[in-house]
């Protein structure tokens, strides 16, 4: 086992453990904070695998923006300090689905890649990622950016009911009684 293997296992354990705490913790806001740890550990996994740029994008986008928005929304609505047991759901069905998908995927990967050893790829520097995105993958990249743009416009339209509304019909004259 190399140092990279040990680091991968340790970071994976942190990510999975924090992920389990996210769903089992009864403290709403703490769940969000555990999500920070879990996503941070995944960024660490990317770093160990040599994908430096992806790791920092993970921190910038997921930890710095997505989780913060999530915490922000929770704090705006309801975020008591202490446990909120009334929000719990029965664990049975979700545990069944989660364990089933996890085991199935694990079995699939173990079966497909069991004896094949892959050489480690070159480090994912910003230069290489840029060349790939704007060279080979430029069409999917553009399609994705159009999708994101339309989602943005849609969000603005949905949150502003005054856009595109018909002018109200003139109010009927009130007849004094």
């Amino acid at each position, binding site marked *: 086992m190399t140092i990279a293997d040990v680091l991968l296992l340790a970071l994976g354990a942190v990510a999975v453990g924090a992920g389990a705490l996210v769903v089992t913790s009864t*403290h709403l*806001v*703490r769940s969000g*904070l555990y999500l*920070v740890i879990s996503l941070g550990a995944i960024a660490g996994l990317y770093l160990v695998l040599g994908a*430096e*740029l992806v790791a*920092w*994008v993970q*921190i*910038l986008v997921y*930890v*710095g*923006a997505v*989780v*913060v*928005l999530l*915490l*922000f929304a929770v*704090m*705006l609505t309801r*975020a008591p*300090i*202490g446990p909120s047991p009334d929000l719990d759901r029965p664990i049975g069905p979700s545990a069944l689905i989660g364990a089933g998908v996890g085991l199935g995927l694990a079995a699939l990967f173990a079966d497909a890649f069991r004896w094949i050893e892959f050489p480690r790829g070159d480090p994912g*520097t*910003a230069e290489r990622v840029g060349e790939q995105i704007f060279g080979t993958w430029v069409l999917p990249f553009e399609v994705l950016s159009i999708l994101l743009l339309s989602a943005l416009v849609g969000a603005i339209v949905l949150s502003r009911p005054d856009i595109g509304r018909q002018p109200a019909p003139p109010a009927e004259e009130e007849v004094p009684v």
Partner: protein
Amino acid sequence: MPLWLDLLVRVVAVMVAFLVLPLVVGQAEHKVMAHMQGRVGPMYAGAFHGWAQLVADGVKFVQKEDVHPDGSDRTVFRLAPIVALFPYLIVILTIPLGPNGLVAQRLDIGLFLVLAILGFGVVAVLMSAWASANKYSLLGGLRGAAQLLGYELPLVLAAASVAMAAGTLSLPGIVEAWKPWWLIWQAPAGLVFFIAGLAEIRRPPFDMPIADSELVFGYMTEYTGLRFAFFLLAEYVGIIVIAGLTTVLFLGGWHGPFADQLGWLWTLLKVFAVSFVIIWFRVTYPRLREDQLQRLCWLILVPVSLAQLVLTVAVKSLL
């Protein structure tokens, strides 16, 4: 020089910078603010113009009782000041001081790392705000989160402009590529970066999350003693970090006469000059209102930084 010695020297240098520079800026703030307001500021501690005032403050903070509000979430409450300080320590690691590798940790995508880590600071604001079990704290924290999320966009766009101009994401690489005429070419991006950076470290006139006349002291209301000192330290390190990044990205870092020998001195001089301007802003401008703050960000800073991107591409493709 053997590897371990090199590593040790760099780590010690960063720790010393981390402990000394904020104190210098803090003392400068006391004195500069005082003289701008027609006072003399601290005069007694340390006998000569109150140079030891912040040391005395530190001793005072250590002696204070560590109070937890009733009903607070203690674990999160205790962790928040450390989470607030930690990102800046990492950022200081990457700021180049002089030419020929005078930087604690040379990284290929240092600029990207810096922006990602700076974005992490908002988590500490939300943690301290929520865990304090105090309405003013929570209001301050929500203001802070909205402000930090909004101003991160112009900050990143302005930094992207200078990275495109230099053709690299490495901080020393950007300084090496810098030419004096960039001062004009990249001026709008520099201004946007500086203003968004001020908002990012929540300094006046962007201190709505703290707003002592409205929210007591915002998300720091319930903190006392050493933990409060950590937040203060984070603020002063934040000044150094924003001044350092502005220097490195837009003011040419170590460029100046005799840059090969005195490069580090030029960087430090520029950092202190920008820090002085940050303090000057605090004395000059009143606090913005919450809606004015968001308006400034979305209607002025973001369009300006987008226009700067277009300008950068146009000039770059003409050259």
